């Protein structure tokens, strides 16, 4: 590498120079999510000569991605996003190292993944992932660049930068629900704008130039072109510890068989929709569809064991996670679900 013609236009900037180019070459940046934001951010980071770029995503390319995720074409449908992204970005700049990890970020792999990099880019599209990234970055002492979108509006900020405010200083706890782009709808141009603002923060942080959006939330409205900055401070009462991380993000699911559960004094929780067959009648049972569970916590005991089941076990795991995150102490997934329970009762 070095100061060849490829980088000459940026090296010519007095704020960059060959020293700046060396900073870019030495930088290790992780992009979490190779979706709308990742596809916008990545080509610019790669082309700028950032030396080491990691990409983590467990998703495959879908047709509905193609209007905004421009690293992918129709030929890539059903292929892992990170493999395609790695290939195309490698062609864009063969001089840098691109590491692709075909996995979703979880409470188990987040900390280890984050520790290999200097700077993290949050390009995910779910609220839970955003809190996971925040908490992992706080524990690993890494800054991260956030962007998120609701329809035509974009939020961009840099969290945990030089011990500055974090995502939780802005939004202390996850909201009940916040729709993803799949649910709310989005234009490709909105995601691209968000990604460019994000990539621009990355460049400034690595080069050590300009004002970084730390303690500032930039809110841009693509319909009105209005752009505002809201300022916020570090909330010192918010502490992320390895214990709180484990409690919130690492849920090893406790399981129990029906016979053992029946012998104990607990309640059975059916998280299926009311009309689903077969109907299971158990003593001490309650039916709350998993989508409504969050609103019905008051109906459930905090200490008494709760045995969750559904039709296949998938929704019962989602219910388990939700209850465990909300301080229900004694929750189990039943090994048997409705079809098996019908035989046993």
């Amino acid at each position, binding site marked *: 590498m070095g100061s060849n013609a490829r980088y000459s236009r940026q090296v010519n900037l007095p704020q960059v120079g060959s020293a700046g180019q060396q900073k870019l070459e030495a930088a290790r940046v992780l992009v979490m999510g190779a979706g709308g934001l990742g596809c916008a951010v990545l080509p610019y980071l790669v082309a700028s000569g950032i030396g080491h770029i990691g990409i983590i995503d467990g998703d495959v390319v879908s047709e509905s991605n193609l209007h905004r995720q421009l690293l992918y074409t129709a030929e890539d449908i059903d292929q892992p996003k990170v493999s395609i992204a790695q290939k195309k970005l490698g062609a864009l700049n063969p001089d840098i190292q691109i590491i692709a990890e075909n996995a979703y970020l979880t409470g188990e792999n987040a900390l280890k993944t984050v520790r290999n990099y200097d700077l993290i880019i949050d390009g995910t599209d779910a609220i839970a992932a955003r809190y996971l990234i925040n908490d992992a970055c706080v524990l690993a002492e890494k800054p991260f660049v956030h962007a*998120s979108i609701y329809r035509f509006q974009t939020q961009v900020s840099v969290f945990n930068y030089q011990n500055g405010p974090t995502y939780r200083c802005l939004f202390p706890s996850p909201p009940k629900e916040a729709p993803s782009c799949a649910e709310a709808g989005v234009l490709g141009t909105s995601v691209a704008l968000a990604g460019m603002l994000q990539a621009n923060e990355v460049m400034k942080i690595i080069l050590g130039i300009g004002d970084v959006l730390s303690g500032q939330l930039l809110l841009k409205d693509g319909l009105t072109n209005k752009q505002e900055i809201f*300022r916020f401070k570090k909330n010192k009462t918010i502490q992320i510890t390895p214990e709180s991380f484990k409690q919130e993000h690492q849920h090893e699911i406790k399981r129990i068989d029906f016979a053992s559960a029946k012998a104990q004094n607990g309640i059975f929780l059916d998280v299926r929709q009311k009309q689903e067959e077969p109907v299971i009648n158990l003593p001490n049972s309650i039916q709350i569809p998993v989508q409504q569970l969050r609103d019905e916590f008051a109906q459930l005991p905090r200490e008494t064991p709760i045995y969750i089941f559904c039709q296949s076990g998938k929704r019962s795991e989602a219910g388990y996670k939700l209850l465990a995150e909300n301080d229900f102490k004694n929750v189990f997934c039943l090994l048997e679900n409705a079809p098996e329970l019908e035989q046993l009762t």
Partner: protein
Amino acid sequence: MLTVYYFGEIADKTGLTSEKMDPQEQQISVILQALKEKYALQNGEFQVAVNHELIDLSQDLKVTETDEIALLSAFAGG
């Protein structure tokens, strides 16, 4: 008249991006309570900025009629 701005999903719930208010009480808690009731907003669903500074809701500050209040919520999409 003070101005309240709504963003993201909060703007969907209020059906407005901003509105002028002429509150009888200048305590922010009273104003927010009235907005919560009017638009069925939940606690914890939004954060509040006054003149572009996020405020600590446990400290009930007074606003004046030239102030701008903004209700902000977390976005998920990407």
